[in-house]
């Protein structure tokens, strides 16, 4: 359970916003489209796909706890201790990376990456080929 939780928290630590070099045409509402650079968050190009990934992490944590509860019935005091410690880790993580009254710290974890635009007309390999 600890391994699953640690890897999940490790994933939540990242907030990498990447502005990609190419532009895409996105539908803003039913009638309007907007052309702009493609942006990804932690490698996911839409909120929906990132939410799906988070759901997956949640299910993994849940399964891992269920497994431990089912296996460790005779030692449930030990299991309770372990769950208590895990919960402390979660709280500590929340206080550290998502402080309630410190927006500056909250946004300082966001890493902005801009992929430089490559000019394909200057690419030597392409020039040779065509």
């Amino acid at each position: 359970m600890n391994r699953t939780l640690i890897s999940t928290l490790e994933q939540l630590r990242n907030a990498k916003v990447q502005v990609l070099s190419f532009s895409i045409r996105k539908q803003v509402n039913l009638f309007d489209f907007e052309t702009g650079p493609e942006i990804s968050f932690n490698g996911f190009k839409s909120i929906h796909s990132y939410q799906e990934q988070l759901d997956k992490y949640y299910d993994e944590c849940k399964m891992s706890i269920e497994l431990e509860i089912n296996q460790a019935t005779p030692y449930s005091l030990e299991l309770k201790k372990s769950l208590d410690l895990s919960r402390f880790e979660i709280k500590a993580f929340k206080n550290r990376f998502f402080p309630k009254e410190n927006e500056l710290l909250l946004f300082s974890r966001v890493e902005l990456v801009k992929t430089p635009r490559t000019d394909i007309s200057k690419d030597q390999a392409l020039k040779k080929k065509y």
Partner: protein
Amino acid sequence: MQFHFVDLLDQLFLHRIHYIDKYILPKESNRFQNQERLPTKQEMSSFLNGQLSLFPPDSGFTNLKWNRDKIEFIELFISVHESNAIIGTNNKPVTKKDYMALLMWFFNIKIAHWPGSLSYGKERKTKRESEYLKELVGVYNLMVSRRN
């Protein structure tokens, strides 16, 4: 979204901790108490006095035996039942059949058809009164007079 997710994780762990407290730990603590139960002061004193354990753990029977006639057994306990001295813990009446079956088990006595024996006793033309119950009254009075 990430903040919400951390909150969800926190709630998940909190719920499981409460779940263990509510459903798993009480069961285990009961089991532990049953396994490790120490004898009470009274049990210890009975043991030291050499008294019999009335409910031996390795047997389905008690260590008590009725030492008088069967008809006296019926007269005594049917009278107790008729006087409503014994009722169920739910305050409902106890059936004579169950009551007698329990007492027969308790005193290790087998009476094949106790209602028949009782009717026979009641229908006697002479000596319809219970000699045994009269004797009990005498025994009690004697005991009281001895104390005085």
